[in-house]
């Protein structure tokens, strides 16, 4: 029997992987070939998806990007024996894109069958949870604190401190909430881990439960991720059957239950307090802080709310120890970060690396620049609330503080590449437009500021009192930055101001122009 891997990851499915799997099954039947199809996660080389892999005596051999209709030709060429073909890539782990990575959180993603617990255990799964059970709450938190892990959702808050606050807060019920409302354009790490290694998130959440005496977890998953929702629900069911979840986690006597909750298309619900309100069945509006969710979170109970990647990073930390994880990285940014590269990119996908690589190394060396072949002009880092970086800042290393020093942010580590045809004035207008569409409406700087900002940038585009209106936008951004309740209004100034600052030539050079000349 030959094992063939056809990814179930959304990248692959969106480009025909389901049809390809059906085609392979049908042709194998017709030709009497003994083929077992395994639906794995993605290795993260999105430009090669759907990337098929076949298990041979020389290891797994990859082919891609495969399109529906390609399978007959592949089989004719001897694909099942790993023979030559125009789309043969070779051993995926030797591909430079993968060979250059340090995979800790994503170490199984793309390799294993996401829904096979045997596969999971064979690749180090549950080692972290088992050790966590031996350690007990206080020592789990100490390991996580020692690791230097910081929130991967964007805020970069030390995870150990958050967990410790919840651990020390007395309550009859506590919650662990995974923020899987990954709405930032250019990010897909949460989706990939949920589709490609869902048990890793489950294990991380169970560890968080043990660390804080929380007995119930929720994964708040956005409705735009139908594949992740399906995989995650199946994985939870299997984890329950295997006793990883339920009244006694792996026989520890400690209970932990988990539920997937599907969102309803509101970007702002990625903000932790509006997510909690949404889970409670309310409008997803941002809460005032304090009280912190760690003290009064979901249903007023102490709650750990972490990004998916933060939680999925903890099994490896517990398995190998905080010191092991801390050894990677630079400055106060410890461990690895899954960088996601999208947009106009030649070789886009997910690249997990220790903190410290420069933006230029990633965009130029790893990803090979743009798909269009034109020069890179700008990259937006950290989603729609992240700054646009010009090529002159490509020496900025991936590090929370280094990005902050350049008036930017890492956010959830998504990079969107734009070529030289981009109009930065249009991007600044879009930043305001997006904020206006998604604002929860609770605070005035965001609710009104976004609309006024949009209108004012439109005036600049039309060439109306350019210098005056740019000054007005700057003033407005200042108000939004310091007056908004959450990052939506507070960070919208990043893309706007970075566009104005780094690409003044796109804003009529800040000079007055004739209205006709704007066309």
């Amino acid at each position: 029997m030959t094992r063939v891997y056809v990814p179930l990851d959304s990248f692959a499915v969106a480009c025909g992987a389901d049809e390809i799997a059906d085609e392979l099954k049908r042709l194998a039947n017709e030709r009497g070939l003994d083929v077992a199809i395994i639906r794995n996660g993605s290795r993260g080389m999105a430009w090669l998806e759907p990337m098929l892999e076949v298990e041979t005596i020389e290891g797994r051999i990859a082919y891609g990007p495969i399109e529906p209709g390609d399978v007959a030709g592949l089989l004719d060429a001897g694909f099942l024996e790993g023979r030559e073909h125009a789309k043969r890539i070779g051993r995926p782990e030797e591909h430079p894109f993968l060979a250059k990575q340090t995979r800790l959180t994503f170490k199984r993603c793309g390799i294993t069958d996401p829904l096979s617990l045997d596969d999971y255990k064979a690749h180090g799964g549950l080692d972290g949870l088992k050790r966590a059970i031996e350690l007990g709450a206080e020592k789990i938190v100490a390991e996580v604190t020692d690791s230097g892990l910081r929130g991967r959702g964007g805020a970069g808050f030390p995870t150990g401190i958050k967990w410790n606050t919840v651990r020390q807060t007395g309550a009859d019920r506590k919650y662990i909430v995974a923020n899987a409302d990954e709405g930032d354009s250019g990010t897909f790490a949460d989706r990939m881990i949920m589709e490609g290694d869902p048990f890793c998130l489950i294990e991380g959440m169970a560890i968080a439960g043990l660390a804080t005496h929380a007995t119930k977890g929720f994964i708040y998953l956005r409705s735009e991720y139908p594949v992740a929702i399906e995989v995650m629900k199946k994985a939870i069911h299997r984890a329950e059957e295997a006793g990883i979840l339920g009244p006694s986690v792996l026989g520890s006597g400690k209970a932990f239950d988990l539920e997937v909750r599907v969102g309803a298309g509101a970007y702002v619900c990625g903000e932790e307090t509006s997510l909690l309100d949404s889970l409670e069945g309310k409008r997803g509006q941002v809460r005032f802080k304090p009280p912190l969710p760690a003290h009064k979170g979901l249903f007023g109970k102490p709650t750990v709310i972490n990004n998916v990647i933060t939680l999925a990073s903890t099994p490896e930390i517990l398995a190998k120890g905080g010191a092991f994880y801390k050894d990677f990285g630079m400055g106060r940014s410890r461990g690895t970060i899954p960088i996601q590269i999208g947009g106009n990119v030649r070789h886009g996908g997910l690249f997990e690396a220790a903190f410290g690589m420069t933006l230029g190394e990633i965009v130029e060396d790893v990803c090979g620049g743009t798909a269009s072949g034109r020069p890179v002009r700008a990259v937006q880092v950290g989603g729609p609330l992240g700054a646009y970086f010009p090529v002159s800042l490509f020496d900025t290393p991936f590090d929370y503080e280094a990005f902050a020093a350049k008036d930017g942010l890492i956010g959830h580590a998504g990079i969107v590449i734009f070529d030289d045809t981009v109009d930065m004035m249009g991007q600044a207008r879009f930043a305001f437009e997006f904020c206006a569409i998604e604002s929860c409406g609770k605070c005035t700087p965001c609710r009104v500021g976004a609309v006024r900002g949009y209108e004012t940038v439109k005036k600049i585009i039309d060439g109306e009192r350019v210098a005056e209106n740019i000054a007005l936008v700057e003033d407005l951004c200042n108000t939004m930055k310091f007056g908004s309740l959450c990052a939506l209004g507070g960070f919208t100034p990043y893309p706007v101001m970075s566009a104005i600052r780094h690409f003044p030539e796109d804003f009529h050079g800040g000079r007055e122009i004739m209205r006709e000349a704007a066309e």
Partner: protein
Amino acid sequence: MAYRAAFDAEEAASIIDELKDLEGPLLPILNAFQERYGHVGDEAVRQISAALNLSRAEVYGVVSFYHDYHKAPQGRHVLKVCRAEACQAAGGDKVADAIEAALGIKFGETSSDGQVTLEAVYCLGLCATAPSAMLDRRIIGRMSEAKIAPIVEEIRL
């Protein structure tokens, strides 16, 4: 697959019954209604508010807050096209314009025959195979002008 049932108060009551003991049951109920009936209308709001002991204003406030919920039925198919930055960078605006032209409707509109609603969506997490779209529950990557015709044909069927 895009078939939506007509609203049926009895069936709706059983959906509510099944979900109302969840912690924070409102979104799961609204998701189920939207999925089953394609909208959450006034009658549904009345029924849910009575069952959960909430005011109609509270339930209506939630329905109107989230992009996924619709007060009135949408088209038989819903085509969501990503308009966020990664898709913009990959030529998504041109594709979006071509889709509007091919369907003869603008974003936010439903075709006069009720076959399709065209919606903007902000990120499907397919940013490295952009531009992206989603037809009902099916995700589509590497959208191009060449891919539009077969999608339109499928919608028109």
